């Protein structure tokens, strides 16, 4: 019961915090310029048919990535993420008076040996797969 009360308290405090911080959020879909595509993708775009092609929705294991490409004059003219995280432009930090302030520091490179590494890099693989599948559809 105490756990339930605690959970409710946490949720309510988040809700208060969120209402307090609420601003207009920006919801524009990110667009990548064609320059940022892999070089080999650029070289082979000449053989693609004009039109819009939606790539497969690829499992990035923390969600999905899906891209849509627009081919103009046989080249990728635009690339759009159909699935992407909503973003809000604010660098405001959480500073709740009721709770201790959490330690913050700029990230710094470490030079020790490690056994293994954690990080979420699967996304870029999912991006490549979704892009490849949209390019496959665009092939003449």
């Amino acid at each position, binding site marked *: 019961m105490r756990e339930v009360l*605690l*959970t409710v308290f*946490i*949720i309510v405090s*988040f*809700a208060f915090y*969120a*209402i307090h911080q*609420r601003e207009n*959020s920006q919801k524009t879909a*990110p667009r990548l310029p064609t320059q940022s595509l892999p070089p080999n993708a650029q070289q082979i775009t000449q053989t693609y048919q004009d039109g819009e092609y939606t790539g*497969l*929705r*690829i*499992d*990035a*294991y*923390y*969600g*999905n990535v899906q891209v849509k490409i627009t081919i103009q004059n046989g080249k990728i003219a635009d690339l759009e*993420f159909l*699935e*992407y*995280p*909503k*973003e*809000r*432009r*604010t*660098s405001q*930090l*959480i500073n*709740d008076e009721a*709770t*201790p302030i*959490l*330690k*913050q*520091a*700029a*990230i710094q*490179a*470490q030079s*020790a*040996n*490690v*056994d*293994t*590494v*954690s*990080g*979420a*890099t*699967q*996304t*870029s*693989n*999912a*991006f490549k*797969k979704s892009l490849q599948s949209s390019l496959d559809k665009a092939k003449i």
Partner: protein
Amino acid sequence: MLLKNHFSQVWIKLKFNMKKTKIIMGMPIIVEILGTNSSSLFKKVFGYFESVDDKFSTYKPSEVSLINSHQLSLRDASREMQEIWALSEKTKKETNGFFDISHQGQIDPSGIVKGWAVLRTSQIIKQAGFMDYYINAGGDIQAGGHNGSGKSWQIGIKNPFKDTEIIKILHLTNLGVATSGSYIRGAHIYRPTHLKSQFPLGDVISLTVIGPNVFEADRFATAAFAMGRAGIWYIEKLPNFEGYLIDKHGLATETSGFAKYTKN
């Protein structure tokens, strides 16, 4: 006698220390086990990941795909599918809907399957009699026992802005760690529609969570990441969990007990 025994154990570990990597589910899976050179154990471990991929992939003709195309009902699904469903529903309740595998009539259990599979694999290794090992599936890690030097496993947190750089070193024994993030702004974590505007993702790039095991770390990392900045506070309040959040300015925020894992 005890000392002699200890030395012979260390010697065995040094002699038979096997590490293998395989790409399954579109990500590298690294397994290191001390004290064995049994390729059949590795075969079993990787085979398990392959069977999980065949069952739960959202883009292969898997059981999940059959359910999503209404060719299979959950009631008739496999025991493992039903287990994942039950665990997902449990997590959904525990996170007030921030974790949810159902979206627009489709299910996508990817946010829970990876940590679950890694934990299951660790049980396979332990059942075979090996206590010193780690399994790393695309950054979700279960660290059992100690490394080849007899110390806690040293696990680096990758710099989200530079793939080859380590920015934090964790020392973990019999714990799990998972990182949730959106490195190229492509990742999409399903967020409850009614809470989206109240909990903006903000400028959060990644959230690393240490928990009692990799399954727990993974599901709470997924849920807390979906809460945006508030996620680090969620982890702060969660007993036996610690977190490390990185924003797009390269500023990191850590929970109050996190530092105990970064010191030797």
